[in-house]
């Protein structure tokens, strides 16, 4: 039924750790133990080279922080508010994003340069790495955790990889845009029933990809969905795919329970014909905010968050905020929605009360807030502050700062709890 073998506990056998690896090496191999027994002197040398066995631990409270200028990530412990180690050699991490293996051990890191790197959080080393495109923007992992999908700008398209080995399973070129070039692919997400969904920025299409046989994926195209879809999200129940449009005021919607009904347009003309403000950073939809049956969406080129009833997909309100929203993210219990902003308001973060739909707090974490990530059940939020070289941790109930971690120009923060969530 499925051509990919199940993942084994340890994907590869390990030799002695090499000095080139960042972080800790593997457990003490048998060769080292022999050295201990025979030559005391060599044993001492071997001991220096062989790290102590890793303590047994789960990964549920771990995550990564991207240090994009250094092509490096930090492995962080959200319980201890500590950095456990770093992993280098990940290439160009501008706009890097991460998905997790379903066991929460491996982070798949998508780099701008087309690099796809499988990082072992426990051993803090690169398990596999491939350069799969010239210019890439992110990816997704399948429902069953066996297939990693990359969305690429150049050459435009989607590639499917074996999550264990990173072997290429399928190459799906995108359709051409108005300039005849293969369209840039945005808004890729997993969906139930072994599917992926993505949007084509230049061609203005949504593609529904059935990847149950990942070597022969079947693509259903939705054309004419609107100009320049810039990102997409799937609702937490996996039913609806929503693509934000940059080229016009509106949002495209596909009911994944009923793809035969086609894509529909919602929020048409939400800008009411007013000239939008210059957009200095594209908003992100991924990292959705669906709270209490309402979707909180960034308004492109406006200082507003739009509120949409997900039963009718009609706008029911909007919240005036401090700038153009970039990330609009619900706390896991959906009691609050947190928002950060594009230049020049990127030093602020605002908290929206989802019941009153009002901004209840405006925080100033520092210069250039790039991303925020909630701990699995939302008692804390971690915020990356690029130009202050730190990650700031807030208590989401008291809004007090409770920890600060040093990081070099941090951008994305990704916790392993994403491994169990649809659309992450």
């Amino acid at each position, binding site marked *: 039924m499925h051509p990919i073998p199940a993942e084994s506990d340890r994907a590869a056998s390990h030799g002695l750790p090499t000095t080139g690896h960042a972080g800790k090496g593997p457990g003490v191999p048998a060769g080292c133990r022999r050295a201990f027994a025979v030559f005391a002197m060599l044993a001492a040398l071997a001991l220096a080279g062989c790290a102590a066995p890793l303590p047994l631990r789960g990964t549920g409270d771990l995550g990564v922080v991207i240090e994009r200028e250094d092509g490096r990530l930090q492995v962080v412990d959200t319980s201890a508010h500590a950095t456990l180690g770093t992993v280098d050699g990940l290439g160009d991490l*501008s706009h890097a994003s991460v998905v997790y293996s379903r066991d929460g051990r491996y982070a798949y890191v998508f780099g701008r340069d087309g690099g796809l790197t499988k990082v072992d959080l426990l051993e803090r080393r690169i398990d596999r790495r491939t350069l799969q495109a010239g*210019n890439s923007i992110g990816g997704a992992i399948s429902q069953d955790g066996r297939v990693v999908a990359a969305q690429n700008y150049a050459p435009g398209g989607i590639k499917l990889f074996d999550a264990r080995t990173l072997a290429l399973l399928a190459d799906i070129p995108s359709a051409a845009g108005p300039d005849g070039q293969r369209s840039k692919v945005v808004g890729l997400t997993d969906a139930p029933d072994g599917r992926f969904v993505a949007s084509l920025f230049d061609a203005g299409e949504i593609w529904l990809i059935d990847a149950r046989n990942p070597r022969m994926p079947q693509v259903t195209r939705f054309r004419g969905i609107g100009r320049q879809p810039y990102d997409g999200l799937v609702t937490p129940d996996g039913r609806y795919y929503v693509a934000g449009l940059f080229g016009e005021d509106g949002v495209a919607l596909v009911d994944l329970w009923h793809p035969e009904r086609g894509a529909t347009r919602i929020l048409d003309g939400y800008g009411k014909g007013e000239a939008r403000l210059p957009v200095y950073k594209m908003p992100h939809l991924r990292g959705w905010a669906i709270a209490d049956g309402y979707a909180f969406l960034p308004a492109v080129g406006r200082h507003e968050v739009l509120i949409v009833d997900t039963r009718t997909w009609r706008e029911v309100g909007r919240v005036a905020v401090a700038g153009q929203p970039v990330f609009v993210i619900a706390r896991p219990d959906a009691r609050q929605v947190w928002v950060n902003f594009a230049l020049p308001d990127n030093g602020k973060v605002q908290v929206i009360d989802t019941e009153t739909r009002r901004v209840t707090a405006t925080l100033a974490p520092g210069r250039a807030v790039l991303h925020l990530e909630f701990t699995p059940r939302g008692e804390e939020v971690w915020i990356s502050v690029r*130009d202050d070289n730190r990650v700031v941790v807030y208590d989401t109930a008291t809004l007090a700062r409770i920890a600060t971690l040093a990081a070099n120009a941090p951008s994305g923060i990704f916790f392993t709890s994403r491994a169990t969530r649809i659309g992450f």
Partner: protein
Amino acid sequence: MCVRPRIRIAAVALLGTAAVLAPVGAPAQLTGAGATTTAAGPAPAPARQRELRALLRQDCGACHGMRLTGGLGPPLTAEALYDKPADSMTETILSGRPGTAMPPWRHFMTETEAAWLVARLRNGTIDAPDSR
């Protein structure tokens, strides 16, 4: 692959202006930045150069890539830009490009600073040590 810069019209317009304004006997200026008000004025002070570089990498880089190799926007490497007209690029930075995701940046830099960025990008010296 990328949104192709629509620069021809702008270039023609600028050249046309220059042709009217430029005194006879100075045709060499028609092809250079010196023909218009985007003239490469004095280079920004070193501290400002650092700010502009940071803006370029971090904020322009959001679309053009931190390493300027492209993304939603086209690459800004010297290889990609060397044969593109400097004036129209400066104008694109300042005014943006309607119909694309490129916004105007005139609130973040002066014309002289934009022209300096363009010159450094085109000849591949954007990361050269601060100098004149």
